[in-house]
């Protein structure tokens, strides 16, 4: 292993100009993927917050019993889609309504009764299974004590569709980067294999096994992929920190987050693996053994 790494580092140093430009090209490709992931994860966070702004409201009948209310609350609390459940009594609803609209409030007060229903306000989690909100609503509607269920489906649905489209774009971008990185590694390492063809021939005559000959080339590809993904992750980190603290972008400042450790470590691992894969193909294509 030490021999493979030392030989790979020597190879990279000997062709340092090519290695540098390859690493930069790969870093740009990873940079696109990393930037997408930053935007995607930040939008996902924003979407989750926005979903809380489209709560599901369960209006209760005036004659609802305590047992029915407990059953409804229990049903809501146990549903995996519910992020939060809050209760608004009839009197609280009136108080809130009067506070928000003085004129309408006065009109209701003049009626001598409270026509506003008690309700449960349910905050929903983002990224639930398709149709899960609809299923919850249907279940609630059939429960005794439930007058009506309101959910701003259209707005939430539109936002979700937008999010799904963005996910698809990411999938396409990820695939393009994957192919691009493998191709770049493949092309660079193929040249390296051809450059060392006579050396490889000598190694074969000395009795080298295929893995022994391949080792330094695979390590070279993996090191390039690792360096490139490392550069792109570092560059992204600096950029995100700059956006966070920048006074030039006041609307974004403080709201943008860098990739979670699992994601950026995964990105670097993927870079290493793709570099390795590219050089593996280069070896077999360039040197039939």
């Amino acid at each position, binding site marked *: 292993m030490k021999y493979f790494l030392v030989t790979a580092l020597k190879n990279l140093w000997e062709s340092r100009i090519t290695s540098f430009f390859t690493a930069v090209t790969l870093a740009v490709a990873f940079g696109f993927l990393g930037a997408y992931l930053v935007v995607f994860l930040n939008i996902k966070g924003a979407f989750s917050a926005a979903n809380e702004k489209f709560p599901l409201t369960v209006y209760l009948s005036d004659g609802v019993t305590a047992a029915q209310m407990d059953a409804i609350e229990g049903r809501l609390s146990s549903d995996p889609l519910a992020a939060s459940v809050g209760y608004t009594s009839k009197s609280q609803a009136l108080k809130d309504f009067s506070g928000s609209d003085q004129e309408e409030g006065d009109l209701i007060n003049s009626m001598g009764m409270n026509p506003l229903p008690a309700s449960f306000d349910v905050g929903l989690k983002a990224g639930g299974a398709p149709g899960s909100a609809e299923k919850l609503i249907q279940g609630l509607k059939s429960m005794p004590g439930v007058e009506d269920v309101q959910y701003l489906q259209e707005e939430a649905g539109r936002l979700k569709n937008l999010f799904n489209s963005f996910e698809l774009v990411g999938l396409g971008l990820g695939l393009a980067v994957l192919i691009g990185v493998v191709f770049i590694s493949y092309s660079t390492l193929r040249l390296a294999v051809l450059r060392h063809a006579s050396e490889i021939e000598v190694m074969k005559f*000395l009795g080298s096994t295929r893995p022994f000959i391949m080792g330094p080339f695979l390590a070279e590809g993996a090191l390039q992929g690792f360096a490139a993904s490392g550069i792109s992750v570092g560059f992204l980190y600096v950029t995100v920190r700059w956006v966070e603290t920048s006074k030039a972008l006041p609307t974004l400042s403080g709201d943008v987050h860098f990739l979670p450790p699992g994601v950026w470590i995964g990105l670097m691992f993927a870079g290493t693996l793709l570099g390795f894969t590219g050089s593996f193909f280069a070896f077999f294509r360039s040197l039939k053994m």
Partner: protein
Amino acid sequence: MIQFYHVTKSYGGPRPAVSDVTFQLKKGEMVYLTGPSGAGKSTIIKLILCAEEPDDGQILVAGRNVARLRQSDIPGLRRSIGVVFQDFKLIERKSIFENVALSLRVAGAREEKIREKTDSVLKALDIYKKKDSYPLELSGGEQQRAALARALVKEPVILLADEPTGNLDYDTTQIIMGIIKDINAFGTTIILATHNRELIEMVPRRILHIEAGVVTE
């Protein structure tokens, strides 16, 4: 140690590179494979190294039938054979020490053993003081001694030398032939391909003459 039975190999030309070749070499024997350029000497060496497959016939090397060897067994066979080429085939970007050590490295030897054996063979071939130099910094004779060191460090049972003195002057040729004679005296089986009659006069041994792909004694 090496047996050829009616071996034929063709590259698609008007005549086979070697045609119906039969010969045997006992353990510790040294033979010259002589003949003009293009006669088929290098093909015989490649066949022994499994770098080429015969179209017909059987080849036994160190008791193994090379036609029946699996691809994964070939490196093992090659590790028991030392090879020296006319153009040395030293790796230019590796030091002399690293070139010689590579023979042991490919066999998975431990670093300690590699250092010990490589230093020892470099000293025996009087090239130790050049161990940190690179091939292109050495004279032709020194390069050939380094190539011999690389072939011998793994203590091969067979040594194949393809025109080992082809690029060397008379004095250096004498030194290299002296080393080869000593190696043979230690029991290594040697095939030395050459078209230089002077070598045979320096160290007289059995001769296999090959011409137009046909071997005669």
